[in-house]
């Protein structure tokens, strides 16, 4: 139970055996004041529905959760430190590996932070393509969420349906950049490679198929009494809690707080596109489910508009006029100067001006922030990733207390975590 008080209570204010998070161990079972005997259940890191290697230590009174302590770090690979020991252009591929179900969005945030540092903006056409790819990636990410969330709650077939559609998106990614999962799609300054001619057709096909499939998902879940029973009224996040846990993304909007970075602080060309932000009313699992489902529909709207617009454009894709952008590849085969410039850029990288930059984008899971500090060298002085699910995961103990064991998997699913992103 959250208490809002003027001063932050210190550790000394609590008795030694106060059930607080971070203090649970699997070795001790505890007995409550009313005599209930608590069972300690160690859930994970090898558990089918903790979405990777999340470990949750639970204190159970029968089936009811009294205390919950998520333990993370099993997938920590030091992405931030790696980012500080690589040249700027080399940092982007590392971001693929954080939230690996939505790699283009990670790339986008990182690249935008670097561009802000260099005070550089990609050409308009590239921004439209960035929006398209980012929004496709959002759908891909939401499909993984929907599939696994439904699977956790027991709707077995849902995951296969979702991955069937995700395949289509991954095919588009493959056609666009050659990779499916770790795309390394965005480049500083735009796109250096031409857009494959078949790509718009593939995206149009997808846009045609997907809304129908969305209806199937909704038909399978929205009207299902068991699904409603498992999600409605479960894992309620009040607005106060949502704000005090600094939730972002669907976890925040599911509680009815209107905060979508694409609207609040428009980046790329989002201010030129017409879409709506769905908000929940009750802040329970079902609201977050509805919000994400509606986000997918809105995303379809965004992609359609962006695609209509970008197909008419014939402007460059890369801001070659900037010194921080990789020189054109084309000239390297013919002129020595171009070849040298290219060679030097690739080998030595570029050195942005001294300064710092933070860019937050609306990731599929919430606000994905990249904070970069440059000391004028070719390596970032500080590279910090504010991953949305790491912050969102903090609300799990709050939600889990008083819920039932079966709800925990629903709650982990509704927060929508990817451990690669949580642990970084």
């Amino acid at each position, binding site marked *: 139970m959250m208490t809002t008080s003027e001063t932050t209570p210190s550790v000394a204010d609590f008795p030694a055996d106060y059930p607080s998070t971070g203090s649970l161990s699997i070795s001790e079972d505890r007995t409550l004041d009313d005599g*209930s*005997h608590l069972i300690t259940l160690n859930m994970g890191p090898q558990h089918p529905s903790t979405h990777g290697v999340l470990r949750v230590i639970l204190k159970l009174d029968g089936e009811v959760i009294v205390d919950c302590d998520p333990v993370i770090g099993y997938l920590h690979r030091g992405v931030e430190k790696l980012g500080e020991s690589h040249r700027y252009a080399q940092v982007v591929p590392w971001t693929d590996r954080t939230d690996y179900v939505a790699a283009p969005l990670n790339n986008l945030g990182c690249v935008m932070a670097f561009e802000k540092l260099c005070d550089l903006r990609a050409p308009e056409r590239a921004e439209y393509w960035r929006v398209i790819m980012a929004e496709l990636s959002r759908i891909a990410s939401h499909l993984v969420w929907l599939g696994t969330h439904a699977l956790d709650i027991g709707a077995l077939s849902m995951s296969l349906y979702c991955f069937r559609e995700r395949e289509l998106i991954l095919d588009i990614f493959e056609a666009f950049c050659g990779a499916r999962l770790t795309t390394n799609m965005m480049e500083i300054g735009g796109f250096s490679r031409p857009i494959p001619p078949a790509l718009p057709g593939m995206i149009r096909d997808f846009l045609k198929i997907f809304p129908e499939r969305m209806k199937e998902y909704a038909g399978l879940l929205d009207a299902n*009494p068991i699904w409603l029973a498992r*999600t409605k009224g479960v894992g309620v996040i009040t607005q106060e809690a949502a704000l005090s846990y600094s939730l972002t993304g669907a976890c925040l909007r599911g509680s009815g*707080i209107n905060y979508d970075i694409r609207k609040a602080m428009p980046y790329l060309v989002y201010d030129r596109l017409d879409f709506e932000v769905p908000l929940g009313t009750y802040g329970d699992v079902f609201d977050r489910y*509805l919000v994400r489902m509606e986000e997918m529909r809105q995303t379809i709207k965004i992609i359609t508009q962006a695609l209509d617009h970008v197909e008419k454009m014939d402007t460059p894709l890369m801001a070659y006029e900037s010194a921080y952008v990789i020189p054109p590849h084309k000239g390297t085969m013919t002129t020595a100067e171009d070849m040298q410039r290219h060679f030097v850029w690739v080998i030595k990288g570029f050195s942005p001006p001294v300064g710092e930059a933070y860019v937050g984008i609306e990731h599929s899971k919430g606000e994905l922030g990249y904070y970069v500090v440059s000391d004028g060298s070719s390596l970032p002085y500080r590279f910090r990733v504010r991953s949305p699910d790491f912050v969102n995961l903090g609300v799990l103990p709050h939600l889990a207390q008083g819920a039932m064991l079966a709800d925990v998997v629903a709650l982990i699913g509704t927060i929508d975590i990817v451990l690669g992103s949580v642990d970084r």
Partner: protein
Amino acid sequence: MPWDLIIFYMLAAVCIAAALGVVVATNPVHSAIFLVLCFFNVAGVFVMMGAEFLAVIQVIVYTGAILVLLLFVLMLVNPDDLPEFHQGKPVQRVVGGLLGLILLLEIAIAILNREVVGVTGTATPEAIAAVGGNTQAIGRLLFSDYLLAFEVVSLVLTVGVIGAIVLALPERLGEKVVQRKGTISLGHARGVDMEALGEGTPEGEAPILSGRGGFAKASGGRKLVMTNDPDEYTGA
């Protein structure tokens, strides 16, 4: 030896061995397993006496319900609260054994020296077969001569169930959460404002197979608030 005698001895032997197991086993769960075994064989003994219906009832009620409940409680109770092998104090053990032996002797004498004083009833195997079988015969008796007793027993069962629920019910109260809508936006002076908004009531327990909520409603009968403006308040 006739077949029925052999079968009886087999059943009886397992029965008594299992009963001894109940008393001697160190682990209560083992005791319960022995008891299940014992009751199964008792059901077999019932069948030998022509009480098929009761044999099945014995299995359904005793092994299927009572002992499952017992095991349930065994697993729920803190293992530390269960004394491992608290044999009684030596005095208790000796007195218990002695009393048992005396009673055994008494009963043995009674069984061997008893005379039949009752009047033979009418429920011969032929008569039972005539009404359709053991179950039908019991049913007829139950709903004629023993109707009042039957009703009283149902009442006792009901009271027992209510009593059990009251005893075992944990005291937990759900908290009602009042829901509001608000916005955080850089466009707003204070960044966050949640005052101007209407209060929504939270949905309680979600409906299952009940009228409310119901089947086949789009979006589960719930509406999302759609907003186009980051500074828009999304209340009432």
